[in-house]
């Protein structure tokens, strides 16, 4: 484990975009990371072996992504996974490697995407578009011109640039198949819940009382992260606008909590797929991707995200904005500050919450970001700049649009 961590960290210092991973050549890869979960024992004392976690956020079908990993990143992937049980050796065929990766895939219970359907190519293209427009504005004198006239100038400029012609068209939507699937899911879940309503109405009060009884046994979280742990985690943070975040911990024992956890994640999945699909996770605008992944048959959970800014600011957003969501999810894990009625308390206990987050944070020694200096806010702004190139605008709208630049 220490050698693998060291190798990952050293390789990441040179950049995972370069060989042996060559992630920069994976044109639909947003983020990728490796982190290690130490060997441990579960709450019943059953051993859990050490594991290596690889996560990637990609806007391509799984089949293509695995093929790309096997082709482009083979050298790095082989070196990282050679430490794992059963990974095919260096002489293995491409097909075996892909099959192993597919077999070891762990599905997320919920997966948040800042803006569904916005791919790497679009993000990078729109960032370049903005830079070109900004440079154009810097070069020209706009004295005495109205916003509408300046907008017309920018139109003409883009139209005259063959390499920017794509920007005049709206971005392609996700595939029809994907949209149909999601639309069906959006309708089907409430429909099923509606059918089950009589049962739910009968069960929910009992569940709420049982949960409250369980919560009353909660104790404040008094542990503080060690300096050594903080230093290790921090040594991989704050090198660019974005940061990787990862926590891991045990799910509380007992059927009540297992059931609650699964139900909350089921609803979280619904929320991130159909409600929080554009620009904000219930008010938090700094998260690019986030996922909740059960491990070891729901005995453990890991949560990982790619976000903007520092972990302190991230935690403050948790406390000030989506405390209710954090509580509903993570209070089903051990070591969480005491909650009331699932949603209240918990994250509002600032220091206890920050300490439990830091204590359960896992260092991410190797992390790749395709556009590390763009905040989620920047990406959304760039998309709006492009959108404003189309259609008619009143003078006030043109003025508003120009303020994006």
């Amino acid at each position: 484990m220490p050698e693998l961590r060291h190798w990952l960290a050293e390789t990441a210092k040179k950049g995972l975009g370069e060989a042996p991973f060559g992630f920069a050549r994976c044109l639909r890869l947003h983020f990728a990371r490796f982190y290690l979960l130490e060997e441990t024992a579960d709450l019943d004392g059953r051993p859990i072996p050490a594991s290596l976690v690889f996560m990637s956020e990609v806007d391509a079908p799984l089949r293509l992504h695995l093929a790309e990993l096997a082709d482009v990143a083979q050298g790095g992937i082989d070196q990282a996974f050679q430490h794992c049980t059963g990974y095919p050796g260096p002489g293995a065929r491409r097909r075996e490697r892909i099959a192993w990766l597919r077999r070891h895939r762990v599905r997320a219970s919920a997966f948040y995407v800042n803006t569904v359907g916005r791919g790497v190519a679009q993000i990078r293209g729109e960032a370049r578009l903005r830079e070109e427009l900004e440079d154009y504005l810097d070069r020209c004198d706009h004295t005495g011109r109205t916003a509408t006239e300046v907008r017309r100038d920018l139109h003409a400029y883009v139209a005259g640039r063959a390499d920017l012609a794509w920007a005049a068209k709206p971005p392609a939507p996700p595939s029809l198949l994907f949209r149909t699937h999601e639309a069906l899911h959006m309708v089907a879940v409430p429909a099923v819940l509606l059918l089950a309503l009589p049962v739910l109405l009968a069960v929910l009060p009992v569940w709420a009382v049982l949960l409250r009884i369980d919560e009353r046994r909660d104790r404040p979280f008094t542990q503080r992260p060690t300096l050594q742990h903080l230093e290790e985690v921090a040594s991989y943070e704050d090198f660019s606008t974005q940061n990787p975040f990862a926590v891991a911990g045990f799910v509380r024992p007992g059927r009540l909590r297992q059931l609650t956890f699964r139900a909350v994640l089921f609803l979280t999945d619904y929320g991130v797929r159909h409600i929080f699909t554009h620009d904000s996770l219930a008010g938090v605008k700094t998260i690019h991707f986030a996922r909740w992944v059960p491990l070891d048959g729901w005995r453990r959970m890991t949560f990982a995200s790619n976000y903007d800014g520092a972990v302190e600011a991230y935690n403050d957003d948790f406390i000030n904005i989506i405390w209710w969501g954090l509580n509903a999810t993570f209070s089903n894990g051990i070591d969480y500050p005491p909650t009331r009625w699932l949603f209240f308390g918990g994250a509002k206990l600032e220091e206890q919450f920050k300490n439990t987050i830091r204590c359960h944070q896992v260092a991410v020694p190797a992390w790749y970001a395709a556009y590390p200096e763009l905040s989620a806010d920047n990406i959304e702004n760039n998309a709006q700049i492009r959108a404003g190139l189309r259609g008619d605008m009143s003078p006030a709208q043109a003025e508003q649009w120009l303020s994006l630049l």
Partner: protein
Amino acid sequence: MAVKLDLDDIQGLIARGYRTLPHARFTIFAAHDAADGHALLSWLLPRITPAGRFAGNSALHLAYTADGLRRLGLAEGVIAGFSPQFIEGMTGPNRSRFLGDVGESDPHYWAWGGPQDPPVDGLILLYANSPEVLDAKQAELARQLDGLALRQITVLDTLKLGNNEPFGFHDGISQPIIQGLPRASGAASAGTPGGRVVPAGEFVLGYPNAYGQLTSRPLLPAAGDPRRLLPRDPAGSGAADLGRNGCYLVMRQLEQDVAGFWRYAGQATRRPDGSGDPGARTALAAKMVGRWPSGAPLVETPDRDDPRLGDHNDFGYYRTDPLGLACPVGAHIRRVNPRDSLDPQPGTEASLAVNDGHRLLRRGRSYGPGDGAPTAAGNDSHTERTARADVTPQHQTGLHFICLAASLIRQFEFVQHTWLNNPTFHGLYDDTDPLIGSRDPRGATFTVPARPVRRRYRDLPQFVRTRGGAYFFLPGVSALRYLDQLSADVSSVPFPSSVTR
């Protein structure tokens, strides 16, 4: 919520900035061994100025680093109760990256407090109403330090306290109003951005903070304080509270390139024929600051300075200037205190409440050539003098930045990293604080929103460099008494330097 502060135990620096004591000198020291450290503490203890009623002609305060507390014999287990940033110190590689102390501000180039410099034990802050009193008090202190063979790592002189900081702008206007202090009872209603009363626990440990909770601080079992010198944990645990009535003190020596700042502003605003435009130069400088040289806020007077508004502080941004057309979103004062412009609900009480968790109580003093307080930048003779390319400052000038806070990470470090040095602050792309931000490796753009098109200033030079600094703890008087009596228990074995990190 009514809060009664123990003003006789709290050091006076928390309650007042000593406007009546405009002369100050800061001594950074290290002791060779525990005995010397204790002898100094015993001598200083009766001279410390508490926060209660004050009418003297001088004041003295004392703060320690984690190393300094160790040298006095405070056990590691107790020190572990302080915040991790305090224990780690300001110059660890993770902290430097976080604070923007990179490039020219790298601690390896610091005048004091850097990794190559002698470890700092503590800080003595001396204030006086006249240079003579200050000199006399300082001489007395120096004799004491010499007698004990303590090392004065550096003595930092300051300029006579005036209204302006060295760039020439009226400074120190916006300070948090602390609950429980006299100013709070006379403050405007809590709903306005400038007149908000911030819970005492944001600045004094052992009182409820902005979340209504007690910030963690070192507690020790009651048995560890048999003489009951320390207050007891207000949470009722029965523990002796070493942190109560104290707070963290951040000290940073920030060197200001005053000539470079005005030179840049002058060059960037030249007329097409190449001639200088003093009005435009001052206006650009004001855009960077967010206030005019008189202190008048740009949101209230966007086009010209108005000295009558020099002390105005009761304004927000969201309703009057959401796009930054008057005060740019990236301007210095809009970054260090965004008031009501924060997500998730800008313009509301919720936004102001988020802001409350990131306030700093500033106690800095300027330093530089000893010709009194700097002249206002609006004064042409000053700007002409400093804007001329051939002017090389004979003496370095800047700010001995001091701020007090209950949480280093949520207050000082957060403001420094997430607001001040963040190139993507509030939707920006490559703009750090135009006045004091780091430019390394990004952040050299300053965007001034305007109709129909914003103006971008690229390749902004860095105007402020960090030249020294350390994290201190400013204990309550009882805590100092407790530290003092530890002398009975510790031998005078030299302090092992291996424990410092």
